């Protein structure tokens, strides 16, 4: 935060879900995430993009699930007991993100969020809303909207 003129009003504390993809830690604002689900049976959708794993039955609703790792171009590993789906809703879209492990929910103050800096070239920075340092190392805050942006 550069502007501290009106610090009391501009600092906000928000809750974030911390989760793992391989060895890296990411976070999603809890306001954008609806629920965390155990991995159900996923039905493949023919002709869909590679990172779209399929669709699931979420209490009577059909929602698509995507592999964040494939979306980010990280190598996919096998699902385990820890593999979870974080259901994200943004712009009237409800989509499940497959993550390796949900760590915990933490409160992050907006003045501790740092701008995105280049870590390595493998990763597409446009999915990130910011970064945050904590005991788990550098946490990358995801911007669900840009993750869900349909390109191809």
């Amino acid at each position, binding site marked *: 935060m550069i502007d501290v003129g009106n610090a009391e009003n501009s600092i906000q504390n928000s809750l974030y879900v911390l989760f793992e993809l391989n060895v890296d830690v990411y976070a999603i604002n809890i306001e954008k995430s609806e629920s965390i689900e155990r991995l159900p*049976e996923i*039905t*493949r*959708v*023919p*002709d*869909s993009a590679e990172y*779209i794993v399929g*669709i*699931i*039955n979420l209490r*009577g*609703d*059909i*929602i*698509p699930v995507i592999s964040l790792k494939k979306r980010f171009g990280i190598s996919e590993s096998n699902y385990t007991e820890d593999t979870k789906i974080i259901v994200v809703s943004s712009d*009237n*879209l*409800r*989509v499940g993100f497959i993550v390796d492990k949900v760590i915990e929910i933490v409160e992050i103050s907006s003045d501790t969020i740092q701008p995105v800096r280049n870590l390595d070239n493998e990763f597409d920075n446009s999915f990130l809303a910011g970064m945050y340092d904590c005991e788990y190392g550098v946490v990358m805050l995801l911007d669900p909207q840009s993750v*869900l942006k*349909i390109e191809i």
Partner: protein
Amino acid sequence: MNTNQYMDIFVEESREQLQRLNSNLLAIESNPQDIEGINETFRVAHTLKGMAGTMGFKSIASLTHAMENALDLIKSKKLQINSQTIDLLFQCLDSLEVMLESTIKIGSDKGSDVTLLISKINALSDSEQKTKSESVTVQTKSLTLDDFQKNIIEHGFSRGFQPYHIDFKLSETCVLKSARAYIIFKALEALGDIIHSIPSVQDIENEKFDTSFSVVLVSVKEKEEIELKLKNISEVDDVVAKPLELKSIQIVAAEDNEKVDGDSTTANQQETKTQGFASKFTKNIRVDVERLDLLMNLVSELIIIRNRLQGTSVKSNAEAMTESLEYLGKITSDLHDAVMKVRMVAVDTVFSRFPRVVRDLAKSTGKEIRLNVLGGGTELDRTIADEIGDSLIHLIRNAVDHGIENLDERTASGKQKIGNIELSAYHDGNNVVIVVGDDGKGIDTGKLAKQAVNKGLFTAQEADNLTDREKMNILFDPRISTAAVVTDISGRGVGMDAVKTKVESLGGIIDIQTEKGKGTRFLIRLPLTLSIIQALIVQVEKEQFALPLGSIKEILNASKSDIHKVRNQDFVSYRDMLLPLIYLDARLGVMREPLNNLKKDSLTLVVVRKDDRLSAIAVDELVGQQEIVIKSLGKYLSDIRVVSGATILGDGKVITILDLNYLV
């Protein structure tokens, strides 16, 4: 008063009233003696006025007020019903529709200019009364001038210019009326300044007048001199010039016309409503469509759980259980039917705007056309009804423009002068069939094939080998149906391919029957409802897919020897035909266990129909036939065309529903 909360109701009711107004006007046009129709129209206009007044939409209120006045005159026989009055009332209706849409968009009807229409109505009512009372030889129309014109007159008056109202009557034998009028206008300009003409100068130039027209002229010359000068022009039968007095000029002032007595009209409106309509309509409740959707979703859930229970009871095998389950199954089906019926609307809601469309089209093309509507009470799902309208309009437009011949051609081929357009709907099993037909010249398939060859779709040789049906299908080709054949077969912008795409997106099929010289019929077959269908569930390796039963013709087993390879494409012999063979595993990218790659000796084939072509789809196994609830894949996956939706099976498992139209 804050009226926002009533806005939805206002819009909904106004739409209904406008629709009713539309059909009533059409009824009056075809039968001017229909007193009850006129009364009904009057009541509708009155109701609209009241509603708009309450909501504070002044322009709507004042226009309906003017319409009401005109209708009142018609009622009391002071105003005749002729094409002029009807046209004007239709114009008002169009204007009301535009204003209603603008109230939806911007929450106000401001900016809509109704003064012109109102003055036209007033002029009409006045002129009628005048012709009755004064019985002048030349038909006079009341003068409605705007402020600007009035200023000129006033200004001129003070400087010795006298305004005259001059009526002209041209000789009946006059051939070039607009040219003659031009000469008259030249002469008038030599005499003074023309400040107004009825009809407008443009209309006169375009010969849009009978044999008489009138102008307002300001001049320093005497009446006699003017009349003499003008009578000397040849082919002018009569000229009557009347000096105008300022106070006799009616000035159109928007404010005066816009005063509506809101309170009293609403009170009256309540009365008319209860008296006039109560007897005619069954009891209705207005329900938000979303609530119906919710109800439908719940019923869908119920069906899923029923299927699941039935699945488990097969295993457990307790008799009492099975019996109750069957009963539950029956109730669920009934409940589903009942909820589905709630969502149904009569196809009339779509059809009711077409008489007007046909009328306007007939007028503009100069053809005489009768629209025969049959089966308007046939019901179909509201969503389908909402979606299919534009396609039907397109077909009707085509029928009028290109199907029905012009009068000369019809007489030459010994047909009735009046062309017929058939618009009908009926139930056929689980489908609704809508027919748009005409008794026009039919579609020339040879011509179509030629167009296709010119466009490079086929070579001339290939075209020769096409069947009539295949030639007909050229009509739906996007490359053909847009610009190329505008003059002959298709309409303008929206092509026939758009119609076909729309019908197919609704899960329907479109078929053409045509006979040269006899006419053309378009048959649109639509599902009754979009949300629940009968499907065949098939399995490939470990994956299951649902295929809509409607497109499936037959299931068969084929042995390897039935399969022939032609240019990298496999075909299977079926009766006397060779059907293209689609391997579902390869087409959908199903992962095979390495061992299963060895092809089996016999194949299970699902024969599906698209248009008139058959194709065979190879699957591993048939799981069964089942009623399934269609769920959308959502916006995120909307670009995947091979899958039209998904469904949840009894065991909670999700399977995709394949779009056979796209697949084959």
